[in-house]
């Protein structure tokens, strides 16, 4: 059991899992890892019917659609004490940009602000709010960690994943040169400006390979898919996973982009 320093109220905290559309569609195991971490820390996890945080529309300039989706999301999570997402960019959207969306509309702004105040990225929620200091997972091997931009710069997620990874038995975190440099995903940017995105991710994969670590972790599936996709196109054997999977000790699933074979589980728990 991870250490929980204190849970002041006896009733379990109701956490709404904002699973994120990428995790929902592409890699549900991250969602289950998030659930395990939250339940181990004493939360009751709910998964309201949900779709997307609205970021694709927001970053494409379609404010009207974004506001519709935002209002839908806020309503869906109404009766949760907290809203937790295994993604810095989605959590950033909920916590930082929802209030901006409704800045000129007093009642909606009030709702958005109240909602934003309870939204968190997963790992920072565990450490900063639930006061989790360690996890009981094992993971043998060297791991490189990439700081996804939104989590790092919008939400200050930096020390928390490193702290929890340090508590994973057998895991050795190696320095990744340029860990805080963008991987080139940027949502639709990766497709709209594919050639530039490719140049940026190529710098990133060069650093990943140079680190020598056989496993790459990060907190955002978009970044992870981008980096995994490039690594695999380059023929690299580096395994790519979401940090939640390792922290929850749930690495039986093949790594991102890897087929379901016995040898795909390099660095699996002992």
């Amino acid at each position, binding site marked *: 059991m991870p250490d929980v320093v204190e849970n002041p109220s006896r009733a379990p905290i109701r956490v709404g899992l904002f*699973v994120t559309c990428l*995790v*929902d*569609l*592409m*890699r*549900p*195991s991250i*969602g*289950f890892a998030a659930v395990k971490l939250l339940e181990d820390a004493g939360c009751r996890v*709910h*998964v*309201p*019917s*949900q*779709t*997307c945080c609205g970021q694709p*529309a927001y*970053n*494409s*300039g*379609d404010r009207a*659609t974004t506001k519709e*989706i935002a209002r*839908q999301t806020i309503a*869906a999570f109404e009766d949760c004490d907290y809203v937790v997402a295994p993604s810095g960019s989605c959590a950033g959207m909920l916590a930082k940009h929802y209030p901006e969306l409704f800045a000129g509309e007093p009642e909606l702004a009030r709702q958005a602000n109240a909602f934003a105040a309870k939204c968190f990225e997963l790992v920072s929620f565990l450490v900063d709010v639930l006061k989790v200091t360690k996890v009981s997972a094992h993971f043998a091997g060297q791991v490189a960690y990439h700081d996804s*931009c*939104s989590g790092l*710069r919008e939400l200050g997620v930096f020390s928390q994943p490193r702290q929890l990874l340090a508590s994973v038995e057998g895991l050795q975190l190696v320095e990744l040169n340029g860990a*805080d*440099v*963008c991987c*080139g*995903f940027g*949502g*639709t940017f*990766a497709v*709209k*400006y*594919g*050639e*530039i*995105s490719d*140049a*940026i*991710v190529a*710098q990133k994969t060069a650093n990943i390979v140079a680190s020598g670590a056989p496993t790459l972790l990060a907190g955002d599936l978009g970044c992870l*898919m*981008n980096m*995994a*996709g*490039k690594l*695999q*196109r380059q023929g690299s054997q580096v395994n790519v996973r979401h940090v939640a999977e390792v922290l929850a000790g749930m690495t039986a699933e*093949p790594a991102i*982009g*890897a*087929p*379901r074979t016995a040898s*795909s589980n390099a660095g699996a728990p002992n």
Partner: protein
Amino acid sequence: MATASHFKENAHAALHDAPLQKALQHVRANFIDKRAKAVARLPEFDALRDSARDIKDHTLANLDLYLEAYEAKVVEAGGQVHYAVTAKDGVDIVLKLCRDRGAKAVTKGKSMIAEEIGLNAALEAAGIDPIETDLGEYIIQLRGEPPSHIIAPAVHLNKEQVAEDFRRAHRDLPRDRDLSQPVQLLTEARGILRDKFLSADIGVTGANFLIAETGTSIIVTNEGNGDLTQILPKVHIVIASLEKIVPTLEDASQLLRVLARSATGQDMSVYTTLSTGPRRPGDPDGPEEYHVILLDNGRSSMLGGDFEDMLRCIRCGACMNHCPIYRAVGGHAYGSVYPGPMGAVLTPSLIGVEEGGQLPNASTFCGRCEAVCPVRIPLPNMMRHWREREFERHLSPASVRYGIGFWAFFAKRPALYRLTTNIAMRALHLLGRAKGRFASLPFAGGWTRYRDLPAPQGATFQSRWRAKSGRLN
């Protein structure tokens, strides 16, 4: 020159330009690491950023009054103030000042405003010789290129290219001279330009700041070229945009403390020069005339609007130094006087979003620019504002509108979304499960052209959760 509307094609050329890619590698060690070290040495740096931002915001909110105060002080010190509404007005004022004085040679300190208004081309067309004196500007002037960075104009070049340019341009020097090292190139440029400094009729500089309290213009250089440009000729012309005004010397100090550190990692540039009016009676040197041209060119319309914060910019270049897109393609690809993140925000204001709209689109919103901006300009937010403008005016490409529309249709209907995504992901999983990923996939060509696409795990999280718990929620 490449234009902003061809950014994508420009970027393509830049990515395949080997000498450029080699030159861009210098950006990291030299700009990023040096800035980080300078910031680490000054514990008050972050607080100074807040102070700098507040000074700019206050000044912009009262710009009309500070302009009046500034002008009065310039005149009191014996200088003249000219107002230019448009770029062409700015050019016309300079041309008139030159013609009225029979000026034939004009030395120039580095000025982005002069670039913005196309001053050199206008001077040349009028039979007046503009001589760039900043080493980087001198080099690109020889090449007929625009600057690729607002602080380091020749950052895209290698020393071999510069040596070639010097050989081609400095024909009177011995052919067999050694120009293999930067120090030799610098020495040669120093000698050539020294004569030009001494014989120029008029010197034109920009201004980093204009101080209302004293009617002073401040320039910040490392070479000393801006100083030789302004003290040797009979006439000193300062060309600056409206938002360069700061209220007092003390206010300027706050901004100076963050400027050089953000730009080059120096605590102070070698020469921070405060110029006020022409020479005084009894002065043995200095210009006899001092003119300040204040350029609007769209700034006054930015006030009070979504892009007002862009007027805080103090032209340090930190944003572009830290931008992954700038790092990948360099400055020329932007096709604008102002590249990088600050260029992506400012350019559509200057040339219109129809022409300049690609620039704010070519961003991952990684936020590093805002994180290093000494005056805390919310650059990604403003790039997003431009995207909103484009969307409202139907300037976004059809693929974007339809793509967002298609996705939004489902995102607004959770039950339908869950149903269709579950079916689609299970099908895709079956299709891709042998390899675990797709090297190619219909409709995903934009992605798979450069990277593999991981295959989904099958049933969606929400469908599995519902199956596990018997209900959704």
